[in-house]
């Protein structure tokens, strides 16, 4: 009985911690920390041979729904969609499957984004701050289902051609009141 109580308590504490982390809005980013930004990947033949960059605090981005959703926004903004589509691939490799050329760890993906890879993947070093690289890495991992469900974006419309939730160009004007005639 006591054991069960203790287990229950542990579970409760664990779920509180998980929930706190999952829901945390990381508004203040930790300072950049990785030297990897300045090392240059010459060849893609030995993936993971050099040290894999580590996120500033373990799982900070991988387990935060906010970070993943920020990553999703950046994925659109920085036009990752242009080559990878919404995970389905195009010019670049698809990101929804489980085939990883350069490794599936957050550090691998981060390195891919920051350093670029041969055959087309540009380097975003100096273009985007480091934490955005981690956020993007987290989102990319969520596309492949590598993140816990509670963290991943809910709407499974990565494959949709249209943007997930924003206005489109063809809109129905409405409520035009009190506007000069020639504008109606």
């Amino acid at each position, binding site marked *: 009985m006591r054991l069960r109580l203790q287990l229950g308590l542990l579970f409760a504490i664990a779920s509180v911690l998980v929930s706190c982390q999952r829901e945390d809005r990381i508004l203040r980013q930790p300072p950049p920390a990785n030297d990897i930004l300045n090392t240059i990947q010459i060849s893609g033949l030995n993936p993971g041979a050099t040290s894999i960059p580590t996120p500033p605090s373990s799982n900070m981005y991988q387990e935060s729904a906010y970070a993943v959703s920020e990553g999703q926004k950046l994925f659109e903004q920085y036009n990752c969609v242009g080559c990878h589509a919404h995970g389905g691939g195009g010019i670049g490799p698809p990101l929804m499957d489980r085939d990883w050329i350069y490794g599936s760890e957050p550090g691998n993906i981060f390195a891919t984004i920051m350093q670029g890879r041969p055959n087309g993947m540009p380097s975003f070093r100096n273009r985007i701050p480091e934490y955005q690289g981690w956020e993007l890495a987290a989102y990319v991992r969520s596309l492949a289902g590598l993140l816990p469900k509670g963290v991943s974006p809910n*709407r*499974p*419309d990565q494959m949709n051609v249209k943007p997930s939730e924003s206005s489109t160009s063809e809109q*129905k004007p409405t409520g035009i009141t009190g506007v000069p005639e020639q504008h109606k």
Partner: protein
Amino acid sequence: MATRAISDTPAKWGDMGSINEPIRRPLTLDVSSLPSVAFGHRNTTWLANVFYMAIEGMMFALMFATYFYLRTRSTDWPPGHLPPALTYGVTNALIFVFSLAPAWWVRRRAPEGDRRAVRNGLLVLALFALVATAFRVFEFTTLNCRWSDDAYSSTVWVLIGMHSGHLVTELIETLVLFAISLTPKMEGTRLADAAINSDYWYFVVITGLIVDVLIYGTTRFL
């Protein structure tokens, strides 16, 4: 089994005398002769069931409003989809219409206290509900859209999904009542419950037919 209307068994007011006379003893309203089971609109559960149907009906009405509201936001309807295929939908509509018969039968025989008729009626009704549910499963596969396609598809799925929820609830309720009717407990208020169950089945049928009109009709003729 004797059945008498309420008007035949008035509650007996004790002798009240005149209000102005001095009080001799407290006066009474004797209700001991009143019956303990009521059918139809006098039953309290019947009233609760009406309220429940009002709530559910309101939810359906709002979903219908949502459907037409979203209709105004799109030029073509259904937007970029084929209308849902008719086969299963029409079959199910027919099943609904025919299932009114056993429901009516149960509702009619229950006040007579005819336990056998009620039991058989419930069984037939449950079979109808079961078949309708089975067809409903196939209906989902022929909607020609997926709920995550666009707002139209979402509405269609939620409309038919909501109704399926009611269908399954009603199926379970009918099965439970049928199970009760196999025991000696099927007496008194339980018979009234069986009759109320038929009322609710009418509701499920009517909303089902309206949902069908929306899903299969307006997509073709609107």
